[in-house]
């Protein structure tokens, strides 16, 4: 049994609308997989299919080597945490935690043991007798995680669990979830639209769009070698700069055709180098400016258009030979609108995409 979860040729349609089609996915034992995408991309739908909350149209779902395609959610060996916490408001925290166990007719002493363990792991012992209404958002989500925990299952499903929390709590709970995963070593599938959560938590990220998985890879590969223009633009904040242009016949020089051209020597092509119309992607944080631009293989001059100081660093919107370019510089460096400054970058850090297929070259 190598895979914790295996999805084969999954299809889901509502009447004439097909939401997921021919989707295949394997999740390893103890892996933390993040499903990432903008709203409406089908990531929550996929999670609901895995949980058994939606009846699928075609395909198979295996969890821990068992075909659970026709099983009820409660029999699939999963625990689930929802965005709105979905705690039962009329029950105490303890009642919330025990509800599923009582339904499954787990013996009393076993229930007590599991509650004690979950309460300890999540530090919710003092809350056990309280109703959800008397808890703060962070505490509620902790209880919701506890409800999944006491089920003693192999697979945890998270449906945007942190989206309802404020920024500070979100960061705190994110760390806690990561710690939880390191302690429990369960398989976890985590749906989010927040790329920071995805990058920090995931062993692998699946980027979804239009019901399809665009790229399934570890965070660093998604960041450094996005397979297509959509993934490249989706990951990274501020977003990647894109330039339209041509690769010359040797596939060594890039030319926008509007007065900007430079060498892309050093770029690692995914397959054989090809020439022709391309999209060139360049992350703002990979552009060096001022004195750090010296020694970079490609050097250009930028005219500062707009400045967004963020404290730790400063985002600069600039024009380079008529081409808009955004880059990041040290927050301590002085910069003003109208300044001219040298910038430089390493073509090894670039991403090149075919103009028509938008696939990585």
């Amino acid at each position, binding site marked *: 049994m190598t895979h914790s979860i295996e999805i084969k040729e999954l299809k889901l349609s509502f009447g004439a609308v097909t939401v997921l089609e021919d989707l295949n996915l394997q999740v390893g034992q103890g892996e933390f997989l993040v499903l990432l995408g903008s709203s409406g991309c089908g990531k929550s739908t996929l999670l609901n299919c895995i949980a058994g909350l939606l009846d699928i149209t075609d395909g198979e779902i295996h969890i821990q080597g068992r075909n659970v395609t026709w099983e009820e*959610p*409660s029999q699939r060996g999963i625990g689930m945490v*929802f*965005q*709105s916490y979905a705690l039962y408001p009329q029950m105490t925290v303890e009642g919330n935690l025990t509800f599923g166990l009582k339904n499954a007719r787990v013996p009393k002493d076993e229930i007590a043991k599991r509650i004690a363990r979950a309460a300890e792991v999540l530090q919710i012992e003092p809350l056990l007798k309280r109703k959800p209404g008397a808890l703060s958002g962070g505490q509620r989500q902790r209880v919701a995680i506890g409800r999944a925990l006491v*089920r003693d299952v192999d697979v945890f499903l998270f449906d945007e669990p942190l989206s309802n929390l404020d920024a500070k709590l979100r960061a705190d709970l994110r760390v806690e979830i990561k710690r939880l995963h390191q302690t429990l070593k369960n398989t976890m599938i985590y749906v989010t639209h927040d790329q920071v959560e995805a990058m920090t938590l995931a062993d692998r990220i699946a980027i979804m769009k239009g019901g399809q998985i665009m790229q399934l890879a570890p965070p660093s590969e998604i960041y450094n070698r996005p397979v297509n223009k959509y993934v490249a633009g989706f990951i990274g904040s501020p977003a990647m700069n894109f330039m339209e242009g041509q690769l010359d016949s040797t596939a060594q020089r890039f030319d926008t055709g509007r007065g900007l051209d430079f060498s892309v020597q050093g770029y690692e092509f995914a397959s054989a180098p090809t020439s022709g119309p391309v999209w060139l992607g360049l992350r703002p944080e990979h552009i060096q400016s001022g004195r750090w631009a010296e020694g970079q293989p490609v050097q250009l001059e930028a005219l500062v258009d707009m400045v967004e100081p963020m404290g730790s660093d400063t985002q600069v919107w600039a024009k380079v030979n008529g081409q808009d370019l955004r880059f990041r510089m040290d927050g301590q460096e002085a910069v003003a609108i109208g300044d001219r400054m040298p910038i430089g970058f390493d073509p090894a850090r670039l991403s090149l995409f075919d103009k028509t297929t938008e696939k990585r070259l």
Partner: protein
Amino acid sequence: MSATEITTATRNASAVAPRGAKPKNPFAPRNIMLYGTLIIFSIYYLLPLYVMLVTSLKGMAEIRVGNVFSPPVEITFQPWVKAWSEACTGINCDGLSRGFWNSVRILIPSLILSVSVAALTGYVLACWRFKGSEIFFGILLLGAFIPYQVLLYPLVIILRELGLFGSLWGLVLVHTVFAMPINVLLFRNYFVALPEELFKAARVDGAGFWGIFFRIVVPMSLPIFVVSGIIQVTGIWNDFLFGVVYTRPENYPMTVQLNNIVNSVQGVKEYNVNMAATLLTGLVPLVVYFFSGRLFVRGIAAGAVKG
């Protein structure tokens, strides 16, 4: 300018300068309109009640004097006793008490049956959608717009075929059926507004159709149960038409009996007894409103806004 003058000047200035809570004018036109309307409507509704109450406590001699608004000089509870246990309808002379107990025997099963069936139907329509459930709901709502008179005779035939015509259970069935459109609408709209993720969580926790209904949905829906209950109690208690059509005289509800007492043509019109009988008949809905009015308003608001 001396020091005293300065302090006075400052004090005067601070008295004029806007600061703190804005002063309120109790006689603003808005308040006069609002409270004036409320007072007028209160009088409009409370005056008949007052007249009934006063008259029911007077003896016939005092009533003949003709001043309906004057309070009773000599308070007597005789009319109430007579209305409850001695007034005659036809050959029976045991007062309204018989009708009261008939109404109770009609009310309790009708109430339980109609509210539980409506809650369950609403639950299915809101949380366990099936193919055509929206059409089904539409048809059900259509029932609310069909005048009762149209259905009276067909229902007589149906009850006859079922062998329920004239029995108490026949009437219970009629009340339950007629309660469906409005009460299912109430329950469905309330349940639709409950967060969907709760159902998902409950399903992951292994609760089934009944488990979710009784352990999750019902405990969260007290206000709407109260609303539906009040609508049903008053509706069934005040019903006259179904009671007179679908039951036999020995099962007549209180309203029918009240009519028979008040409209009897022999002898002297005993206004005090009639008033007492009417008050007795209206007592149940009145008490229900008094004790659950707040919950009623809350439930109506919750059910109405979300849908």
